[in-house]
């Protein structure tokens, strides 16, 4: 491939200092991850409206298209973005201006930064960090700052109520989430996401979902709660507190919150597929009838497919379940999920000692 | 590394206590309020088991465990035995009191047992890390116990003060420890002692560390000028908690002073001797003089504690084996006396009535001659009147001071204890020569009456035959 590049570009590249070269390469990789991600975010919103529309026997957006063709409404997210860009950002009187403006940034920052350690297949990962899982956990846990600061800085009753709800909810579910991940760590013996996926090699029966179904359920449901999505979206709670923490936001500032929410949905889906469903590994691995067939090969398409399924689950939940009451959310987190995870970690410990399942070798 | 390399069997009493405490925790959660006695019995059983394990594991040698972080020696054995026994007696005394105030909860026993574990670890610590963790475990339990009576404003205030000042003291201790670690490069007390002998007593960094550590220790022990929390906490907390925090923790406090000042910083004894002289004199002076002005007996006993702490410091500052032995003797004697004193207060208290004013003791002789006599023994012992235990304790400390040629200091100590005699005798006067105001008969369970009488008679008996305990204390430091 190298020979097709004109000589002068290579010379120009070599003329840069080495540090700058590394910096540019990293920047390039970041752009390569972020641009598809943001596009995906935009189209998840479209997807959501469509999916929920069909579930409710409606059609969903179908008007906005490109160049005069309606194209099933595919232009809708672009039009929405342009509309929001041109709207005025209103800062409420008596609001804390700096914190008010910094809050959306704080909520999108971690949601995007977490992608640094997500491996897309064996080779494609921006930073192959040893403690990758911990890094992801840390970043998802600080996403709550955006919500809390937005709620406080808005100088609004509804917003602060929502901030308090979100704070308590995220702290509660983080514990269950962390415990569920302890089970994954026990099975893989590594904090590195790539190593966790590789530990599940050997077809569907070796995936962690088989051995830790309760932990998988706890993790995914906690993930839904952590992203403040239905049925755990009391932080938004439009029927009680209008729109929660972003009730005072408008225009692009609101759009950034919106982006962060969907980026988090994709992140949680990707993590679930990496940690419990073998990421890029094929479920048909090792089937003799499919030997050499692309279906049995590990590839990024498996990863994207699994992730898309979980994204679909998020939308499915929203169309299916009514919103939990706040005390029910707390009860579920503290009194159901945490005991379940602790019990299952104990069960796993027994499995390790008895050398059952993935620990047989 | 194998499990055996940890030599964990040395810490068997602690391991047993921790496991039993967890059992109590699990059992207590499933009990209804009417069955709360089961937690009490279980707590007593775990203490008994710990006591027996300690007794069977006693040794004269110095044994290290857990990579030299945990040490067992004669001092540790003796102090731990007393700590466990005293906590068991405290539990007996406090049962009726807690029931009368609707705070008869499993948590009192749980926190008490965890605090006991903390004290045992403090006593056995051979590294700064263990020392600090043991101390925090103890303090955290005590803060919560003081606040146990949530609906009582005084208790909440006391807990708040205790917590804030205790946290500051812990910060000081950590600061001193971090300097020590920086200078010696090790958390082990043995290595620190080695580093101190190498740098010598002139090293200003070491002295800095010493000051921080000393301030923190004196905070925890309640020596003047770090005594501000003592009266408020003693008065504010429920008497069942006051008796807990005024007895066994003093033994643990003595142990960490020995571990830190003597074992680790023994090379700096010329420095800490001077500091301790000031602290001891101030404690004896303020404690004894201010106690006279108190009308609340719990507050009065708090100031009396401060003066006793002054005496304990006197023994330590002698920096001789004799001094340490006498300080230990004094600490044990003080713990027993304080146990009895607060026991009597709880005996007089009943539901809705605290018996914490001096006037509540008026005419006790008419109500119950036997317990008036017990209180007489306790007060005589605290005042240091022969032939009680308190007299021998004071005598031993004074002798060790005179032996290092600090006669003037001994004179000061005697002077202030004579002042102190006044307020102890005042209680005796109230009991025997004043008319009773309160005719309610004493109501309390038989086991408490027995144990309380035993406690007071033990002080008398040890006063008549002090050699047995003294020999034990001396043998530890030779």
């Amino acid at each position, binding site marked *: 491939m190298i020979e097709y590049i004109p000589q002068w570009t290579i010379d120009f590249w070599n003329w840069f200092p080495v540090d700058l070269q590394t910096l540019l390469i990293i920047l390039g990789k970041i752009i390569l991850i972020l641009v598809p991600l943001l596009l995906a975010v935009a189209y998840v919103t479209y997807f959501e409206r469509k999916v929920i529309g069909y579930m409710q026997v409606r059609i969903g957006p179908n008007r906005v298209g490109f160049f005069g063709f309606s194209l099933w409404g595919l232009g809708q997210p672009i039009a929405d973005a342009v509309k929001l860009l041109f709207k005025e950002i209103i800062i409420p009187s008596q609001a804390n201006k700096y*914190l008010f403006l910094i809050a959306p940034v704080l909520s999108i920052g971690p949601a995007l930064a977490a992608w640094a350690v997500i491996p897309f297949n064996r080779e494609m990962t921006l930073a192959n960090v040893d403690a990758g899982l911990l*890094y992801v956990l840390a970043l998802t846990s600080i996403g709550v700052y955006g919500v809390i600061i937005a709620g406080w800085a808005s100088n609004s009753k509804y917003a602060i109520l929502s901030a308090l709800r979100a704070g308590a909810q*995220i702290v509660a579910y*983080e514990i269950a989430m962390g415990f569920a991940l302890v089970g994954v760590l026990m099975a893989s013996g590594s904090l590195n996401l790539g190593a966790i996926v590789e530990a599940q090699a050997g077809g569907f029966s070796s995936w962690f979902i088989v051995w830790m179904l309760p932990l998988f359920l706890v993790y995914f449901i906690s993930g839904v709660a952590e992203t403040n999505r239905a049925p755990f979206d009391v932080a938004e709670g439009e029927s009680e507190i209008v729109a929660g923490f972003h009730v005072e936001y408008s225009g692009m500032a609101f759009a950034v919150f919106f982006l962060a929410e969907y980026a988090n949905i994709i992140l949680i889906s990707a993590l679930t597929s990496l940690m419990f469903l073998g990421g890029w590994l094929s479920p048909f691995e090792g089937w003799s009838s499919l030997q050499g067939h692309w279906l049995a090969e590990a590839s990024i398409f498996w990863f994207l497919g699994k992730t898309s399924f979980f994204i679909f689950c998020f939308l499915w939940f929203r169309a299916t379940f009514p919103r939990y009451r706040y005390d029910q959310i707390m009860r579920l987190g503290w009194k159901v999920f945490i005991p379940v995870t602790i019990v299952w970690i104990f069960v796993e410990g027994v499995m390790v000692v008895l050398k059952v399942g993935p620990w047989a070798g | 590394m194998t499990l055996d390399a940890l030599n964990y069997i040395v810490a068997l009493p602690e391991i047993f206590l921790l496991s039993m405490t967890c059992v109590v925790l699990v059992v207590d959660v499933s009990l209804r309020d009417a069955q709360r006695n089961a937690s009490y019995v279980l707590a007593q059983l775990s203490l008994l088991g710990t006591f027996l394990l300690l007794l069977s594991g006693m040794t004269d040698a110095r044994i290290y465990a857990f990579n030299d972080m945990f040490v067992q020696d004669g001092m540790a054995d003796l102090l731990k035995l007393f700590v466990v026994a005293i906590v068991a007696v405290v539990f007996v005394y406090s049962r009726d009191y807690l029931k009368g105030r609707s705070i008869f909860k499993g948590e009192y026993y749980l926190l008490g047992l*965890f605090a006991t574990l903390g004290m045992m*670890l403090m006593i056995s610590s051979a590294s700064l*890390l263990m020392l600090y963790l043991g101390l925090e475990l103890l303090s955290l339990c005590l803060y919560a116990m003081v606040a146990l009576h*949530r609906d009582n404003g005084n208790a909440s205030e006391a807990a708040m003060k205790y917590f804030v000042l205790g946290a500051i003291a812990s910060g000081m201790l950590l600061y001193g420890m971090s300097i020590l670690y920086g200078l010696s490069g090790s958390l082990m007390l043995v290595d620190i002692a080695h580093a101190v002998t190498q740098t010598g007593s002139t090293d200003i960094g070491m002295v800095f560390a010493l000051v921080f550590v000393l301030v923190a220790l004196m905070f925890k022990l309640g020596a003047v000028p770090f005594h501000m929390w003592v009266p408020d906490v003693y008065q504010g907390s429920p008497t069942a908690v006051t008796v807990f925090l005024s007895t066994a923790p003093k033994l643990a406090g003595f142990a960490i002073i020995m571990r830190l000042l003597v074992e680790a910083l023994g090379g700096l004894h010329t420095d800490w001797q001077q500091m301790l002289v000031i602290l001891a004199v101030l404690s004896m002076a303020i404690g004894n003089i201010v106690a006279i002005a108190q009308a609340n007996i719990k507050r009065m006993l708090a100031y009396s504690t401060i003066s006793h702490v002054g005496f304990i410091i006197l023994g330590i500052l002698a920096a001789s084996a004799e001094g340490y032995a006498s300080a230990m003797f004094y600490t044990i004697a003080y713990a027993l006396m304080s146990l009895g004193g607060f026991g009597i207060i709880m005996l007089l208290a009943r539901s809705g009535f605290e018996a914490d004013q001096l006037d509540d003791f008026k005419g006790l002789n008419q109500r119950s001659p036997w317990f008036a006599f017990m209180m007489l023994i306790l007060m005589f012992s605290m005042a240091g009147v022969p032939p009680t235990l308190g007299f021998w304790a004071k005598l031993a400390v004074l002798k060790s001071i005179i032996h290092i040629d600090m006669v003037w200091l001994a004179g000061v100590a005697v002077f202030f204890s004579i002042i102190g005699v006044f307020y102890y005798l005042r209680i005796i006067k109230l009991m025997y020569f004043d008319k009773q105001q309160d005719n309610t008969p004493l109501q309390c369970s038989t086991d408490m009456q027995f144990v309380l009488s035993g406690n007071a008679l033990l002080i008398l008996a040890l006063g008549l035959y002090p050699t047995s305990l003294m020999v034990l204390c001396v043998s530890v430091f030779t």
Partner: protein
Amino acid sequence: MTFTDFIFFAFSALLLASAMGVITARNPVHSALFLVLSFFSCSALWLLLEAEFLAIALVLVYVGAVMVLFLFIVMMLDINLVQMREGFVRYLPVGVFFALCLVGIMIWVVGDFSAGVFEVPTLQQAVQHGADYSNTKALGRVIYTDYVLPFEIAAVILLVAIIAAIILTMRRREMTKYQTPSKQVMVKRNDRLRIVKMEATVEESE
């Protein structure tokens, strides 16, 4: 100055600045947020030391959980800043006097700074490890062998903290209204609904 040095100085400066912010900020919420920032810079510095487990744990535990709760409390406090600042000028001279005394005593004790009491002879370069070195593994190995006793006791302290927090907050108060979900779920139709049979009546018109 290498790139690593640059990062070190940048984050050190940020750490110092944010730590100053913690104590100088007028608004307690700002103070708490500055504290979050200083934790972040701290964890960046630890990353430079190849202590990635500690660095991330700092963010996870302190920033992600402790400070969230802290912020939670601070946001709900109704602090009157004017009232807090009252008397500041009045007490300032006394405070300055004692601060100066303290500084004076320190100079007197430490004496000649050129004597080098607190001087560290040489700053050692942090040990550099290979790419296969795992900070997490190294920590785990030490914690479960050499330091197993302190580790367990730290866990006991946390347990005590949980017990203490529960006993101090869990109490039945008279005025509280609460729901018992288990009872709500057990409700049968018959508890709520009574079907009454009535004869149809015709209203007589006049």
